[in-house]
């Protein structure tokens, strides 16, 4: 995608706002003063060394983790202890996990229709048509009646993406979606994500796939030690990293 193409879908509408967010695991200060805004249509890639708090950051956005200081506002609703608000936000925020987390006791189709039926109260038939559309989009319509255990890793991850999309989320969060996959399956998942980006989906991806970052991201964020160290447009970020920790990190991952 060209730079122009990338910026085209971005609107001024604020999707996610994190202001001065801190989080601790017991005594361990895992997120430090995170300030991040994501506009509708924007695509953000987060990278950084293992244990730097990337997962924790995006998991705070749908309250899989609770932050202790600062504010997180998703689509105008602030995340607090209010369960109603949390569930409302979770309906609009899709998440794709490193280990897929498909429901093993349900078929791929049932995985996809579960939330539309039980959360959105969609009639079963309509939910199945919707699911079939998304399964076609991720190119596994023929796997609909299988159980997750019968699919390859790449197929499972694509099924998981379809499951998320079935809720028609406004934002998609990806937590290292390809790092549990065998090399030959990474591309099939990334292709789906690129297509999703082209369709204008707001995305936050934790990933070390730098090619993917260059192709779709409006902004790349580098985290280390629970802080956002540096963020920039991908061209600038990869060509001229400012902080030395960023430089070190990039030199390490671009080596292989």
């Amino acid at each position, binding site marked *: 995608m060209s730079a122009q193409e990338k910026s085209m879908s971005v609107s001024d509408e604020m999707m996610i706002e994190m202001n001065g967010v801190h989080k601790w695991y017991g005594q361990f200060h895992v997120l430090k003063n995170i300030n991040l805004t994501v506009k509708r249509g924007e695509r953000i890639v987060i990278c950084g060394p293992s244990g730097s708090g990337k997962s924790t950051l995006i998991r705070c956005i749908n309250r*899989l983790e609770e932050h202790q200081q600062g504010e997180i506002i998703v689509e105008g609703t602030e995340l607090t202890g209010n369960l109603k608000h949390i569930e409302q936000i*979770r309906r609009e925020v*899709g998440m794709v996990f490193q280990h897929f*987390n498909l*429901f*093993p*006791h349900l078929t791929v189709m049932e995985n996809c229709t579960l939330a539309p039926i*039980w959360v959105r109260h969609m009639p079963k038939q309509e939910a199945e048509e919707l699911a079939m559309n998304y399964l076609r989009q991720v190119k596994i319509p023929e796997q609909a009646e299988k*159980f997750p255990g019968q699919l390859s890793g790449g197929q499972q991850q694509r099924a998981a993406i379809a499951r998320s999309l079935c809720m028609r989320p406004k934002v998609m969060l990806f937590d290292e979606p390809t790092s549990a996959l065998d090399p030959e399956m990474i591309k099939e998942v990334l292709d789906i994500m690129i297509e999703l980006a082209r369709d204008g989906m707001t995305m936050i991806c934790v990933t070390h796939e730098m090619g993917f970052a260059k192709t779709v991201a409006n902004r790349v964020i580098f985290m280390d030690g629970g802080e956002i160290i540096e963020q920039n447009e991908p061209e600038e970020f990869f060509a001229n990293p400012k902080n030395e920790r960023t430089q070190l990190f990039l030199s390490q991952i671009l080596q292989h």
Partner: protein
Amino acid sequence: MQQQYEAGRHPDLPPPLVERGAVKWVRDNFFSNATSIVLTAVAVYFLYKVVPPFVEWAFVDAVWDAHHRNECRAKGEGACWAVLRARIAQFTYGFYPAHLYWRVNTAFVLLFIALAPLLFEHVPGRRYLLWFSLAYPVLAFFLLWGGLGLEPVESAKFGGFLLTIVIGVTGIIGSLPLGILLALGRRSRLLIVHTISVAFIEFVRGVPLITLLFIASTLLNYFLPPGTYFDLLLRVLIMVTLFASAYLAEVIRGGLAGIPKGQFEAADSLGLGYWKSMRLVILPQALHISIPNIVNTFIGLYKDTTLVVIVGLADPLGISRATLADSKWQGLSTEIYIAIAVFFFVSCFAMSRYSLYLEKKLHTGH
């Protein structure tokens, strides 16, 4: 010699032939090595010593038709099954009024109709039958105890296998939902819910069932306002249910602990909310893992129903006491206990088979 092929040109070959058939099976299973040969010989000798005499006693020389024990002994050397024929009604219904047996029989037949849609997926008209299953407990209550124009029958008249089945089925049906709630409660982050669940589970598990039954039959009178009448069978039903639910809670807790964190997170991230994610995602998997242990608990409960004889309820063991005390049938304990054992074995074996069937059916290849 294996034939050699050029690299990349190795054809698909059929697997090597292996021996099959009965001879091989027998050899593998009974005569594969010295130990196995010795064990086989010992087993055959044992069977030879035990089976023929038993068959002779239980079938060949058995007496089915007699009015009392001495007549049996006069007629043949073997088992005196005549005692069962004479007392079959008592063993089945206890002291339930004879002209109302049809109500028990109806309730029993309907029980299977109510269970069918719960136990099996491919039952014709399952959707409608499930409503019947839901209504069944109420229906069975009125059939067995009377009311609504049916002649009332006191609990004290219940006995024999009827009593076993009433306690067993009520206990099983009541303890499963309660056990699930307790297991969830134990994992709850709400301090009060957690504490109550833990206290309940630990108390009930730490006390023998007999003690609970005694509490049910005597101690409760001290707590209840004087003059309240609280049916003994009802109290026993409650105690048995509570007892089994505490065990089930722990079994199910084990199942819940086996569910990866990612499943909870995926359900949460879809916005399912606590109850829906438990019901649709977590519990189906947790219960699936726990099936063998759940059924094990049920079998234990079912057999423990024999303990109610201690608080004076006439389950099959209670009836057999009465029968053995009768001068006409004295000394026939072997026959009676074998019959009771067969009854329990059939019920428990059916449960165990069903659990295997369910495990197989739910296996989805992960």
